[in-house]
């Protein structure tokens, strides 16, 4: 016990808080060496993240909290941040402020001071202030607030030593004398600003405890006047000493950066151009994913074929038993390796999404889509999780936290998995490549459109059913545009690639091995005839249900069940189920197509399969995320059932329609 007490006394616990887009996570990454996702839109950090760093023999436990404008608990992020600070889990609060928007950032600072915790103000983006020809008098600001104010540049990793030094001295900042001095300074400011005597109100607050301080934090609601006065004392033009108007100091209207953002916005958020530009950007992302990604994928396939061949030869020389050879070559190399060939497509998709997020365009997409989203009872802000869903459903489901109302959150969580995530890409690429010839890319793209349509229709149905629908409202900050930072983007993409490789090495590896067992073992033990395996028994039992969708083949059913582990597994399972080595390569696909055609599985069946994969039960990771966010097993089960039912209905419709069309005319696919 004593030992643990020792450790706690030696560790300084600091919580990083600040407005959205103030560079908080960048600073956290710079301090801890972590690689948390950084992007230029409000709501990137939705839950607190923790990290460690040491400096001059001292150990720091740092927590990155979600971006907030105040501590009023209006959103879930604000609630999380407020609760965390009040819980006593931090010794010192590091308030990260965007110096170029000092006025609004100081509002939060004043609220933090009311909580009675030691606060250190880290002023980020001072370079922008300097570029605007302004200067912030840090000494005066520090005097007024009674806390250390440190200029930092999170991107350039400047000022970090000084910041850690200031954090380490936190015990000195809440001495009563210092607090009294601060209150007196603030009091003088207020008197100066409006001439009204607020002395009684402030003196009332002077000696309050932290809890009482919080209760009176709403007092700061009227403090923008005070902040304006504070700004007029600390911000100066560099070339002249005259005081500019507060408004000019916060944001120099004629500043180049501002003009650029306004100029770009004139097109990107314009009445006529906004939506077409958004659609063009999305189309371009998918085009690059399929063309450039597909080109690179070819090289990965060659490598896989070579590896598979060499491994086979090596195992033969070692005279390994046929069962083990089958497990390694067909189960593991073909299963995991097949999924890895899609790495280039995944890389390009995430690279494009990262550029979109880092540039500041995401919030504009919310604005552009607000009109359309309001027709299905959601605000444009709910579109952001949907957009992220094209990458991966898990962070997308978590991003729904930024929505203010629970009902909106649930609705968004329900429809988010319909957005086609990158894990489904291998399924589309494989089946469209085999059955759609020159229209393969169009068939893939149509999956994204069907996903969006399914999301919209589901939301609309819920909107109609819900007679007491929440009055949705869009309220989102539009950050300044910035050229995407190569470092942030590479960090983001690297993490995504790492996740993908980890998934290939864990979930997909395990699923491949389990599938191999299910397909090679039956009631009689090891079976050479797969149709007598456990997998076949299970598949044959369910298959009749899927007959109307053209998917009544036991092998397809088993592949779909395996896809619940991760959607990519559908592809690797098909290789095992149909006995095709390296199914994702050119020769593998040709062999697979031949086998399927002999079974009577044609283009309509393939399209129905793609549609089913798009819409059915999300992967286990996504189900876990839904459970966590909804905090209800029942709701999670209902969502999973609804999605599977929707998948069945849509795949039946698509199969029947395409089948009917096939009877009438021949598709000119080649």
């Amino acid at each position: 016990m004593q030992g643990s007490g020792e450790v706690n006394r030696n560790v300084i616990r600091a919580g990083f808080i600040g407005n959205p887009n103030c560079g908080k996570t960048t600073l956290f990454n710079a301090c801890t060496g972590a690689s948390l996702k950084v992007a230029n839109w409000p709501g990137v950090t939705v839950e607190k993240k923790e990290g460690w760093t040491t400096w001059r023999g001292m150990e720091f436990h740092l927590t990155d909290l979600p971006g907030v404008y105040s501590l009023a608990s209006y959103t879930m992020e604000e609630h999380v941040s407020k609760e965390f600070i009040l819980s006593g889990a931090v010794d010192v609060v590091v308030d990260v402020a965007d110096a170029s928007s000092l006025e609004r950032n100081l509002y939060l600072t004043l609220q933090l001071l009311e909580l009675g915790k030691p606060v250190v103000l880290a002023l980020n983006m001072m370079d922008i202030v300097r570029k605007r020809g302004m200067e912030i008098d840090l000494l005066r600001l520090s005097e007024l607030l009674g806390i250390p104010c440190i200029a930092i540049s999170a991107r350039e990793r400047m000022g970090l030593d000084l910041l850690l030094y200031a954090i380490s001295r936190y015990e000195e900042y809440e001495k009563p004398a210092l607090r009294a001095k601060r209150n007196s300074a603030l009091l003088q400011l207020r008197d100066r600003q409006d001439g009204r005597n607020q002395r009684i109100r402030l003196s009332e607050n002077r000696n309050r405890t932290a809890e009482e301080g919080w209760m009176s934090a709403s007092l700061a609601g009227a403090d923008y006047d005070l902040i304006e006065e504070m700004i007029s004392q600390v911000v100066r033009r560099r070339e002249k000493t005259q005081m500019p108007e507060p408004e000019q100091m916060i944001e120099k209207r004629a500043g180049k950066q501002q003009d650029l953002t306004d100029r770009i916005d004139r097109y990107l958020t314009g009445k006529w151009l906004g939506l077409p530009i958004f659609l063009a950007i999305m189309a371009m992302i998918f085009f690059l994913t399929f063309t450039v990604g597909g080109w690179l994928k070819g090289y990965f396939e060659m490598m896989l074929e070579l590896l598979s061949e060499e491994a086979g030869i090596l195992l033969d020389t070692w005279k390994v038993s046929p069962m083990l050879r089958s497990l390694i070559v067909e189960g593991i190399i073909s299963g995991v390796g097949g999924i890895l060939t899609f790495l280039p497509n995944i890389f390009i998709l995430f690279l494009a999404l990262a550029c979109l997020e880092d540039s500041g365009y995401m919030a504009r997409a919310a604005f552009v889509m607000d009109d359309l989203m309001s027709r299905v009872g959601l605000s444009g802000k709910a579109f952001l999780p949907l957009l992220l869903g094209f990458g991966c459903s898990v962070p997308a489901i978590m991003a729904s936290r930024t929505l203010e109302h629970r009902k909106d959150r649930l609705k968004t969580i329900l429809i988010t998995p319909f957005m086609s995530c990158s894990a489904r890409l291998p399924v589309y690429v494989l089946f469209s490549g085999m059955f759609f010839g020159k229209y393969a890319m169009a068939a893939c793209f149509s999956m994204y459109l069907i996903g969006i349509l399914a999301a919209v229709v589901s939301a609309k149905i819920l909107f109609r059913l819900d007679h007491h629908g929440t009055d949705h409202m869009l309220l989102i900050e539009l950050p300044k545009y910035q050229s995407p930072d190569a470092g942030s983007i590479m960090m983001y993409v690297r993490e995504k690639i790492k996740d993908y490789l980890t998934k290939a090495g864990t979930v997909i590896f395990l699923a491949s091995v389990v599938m191999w067992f299910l397909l090679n073992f039956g009631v009689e033990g090891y079976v050479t005839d797969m149709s007598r395996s456990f997998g076949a028994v299970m598949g044959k039992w369910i298959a009749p249900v899927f007959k109307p969708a053209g998917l009544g083949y036991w092998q397809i059913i088993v592949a779909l069940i395996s896809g619940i582990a991760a959607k990519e597994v559908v592809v690797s399972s098909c290789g095992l189920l149909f006995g095709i080595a390296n199914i994702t390569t050119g020769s593998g696909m040709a062999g697979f197509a031949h086998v399927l055609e002999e079974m009577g599985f044609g283009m309509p069946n393939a399209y129905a399969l793609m549609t089913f994969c798009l819409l059915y039960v999300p992967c286990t990771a996504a189900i876990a995320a839904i459970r966590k966010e909804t905090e209800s097993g029942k709701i999670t089960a209902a969502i999973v059932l609804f999605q599977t039912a929707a998948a069945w209905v849509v795949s039946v419709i698509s199969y029947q329609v395409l089948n009917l069309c096939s009877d009438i005319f021949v598709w000119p696919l080649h």
Partner: protein
Amino acid sequence: MRLKEGKEHQIYEVTDMRLEPELERRMGALGLSPGTSIEIVNNQKKGAVIVKFRGVRFAFGTRIADQIHIKEAAGCREAAR
């Protein structure tokens, strides 16, 4: 007049906000309250509007934009393009 009825690139002063108390507090935290000057950046669409106040741009949906009342600011000026 309502915010939604304002002209683009024009600076106004907020006179009244008829939002529910929670949302009004939220607006207060963002620095928007009666007396604040606000610039309309984009009011082209039927729905949402983009505004700028205290140096930061925000997108407001119709539901919010309809409840914020504004008047032309004293010495009203065209915002620098």
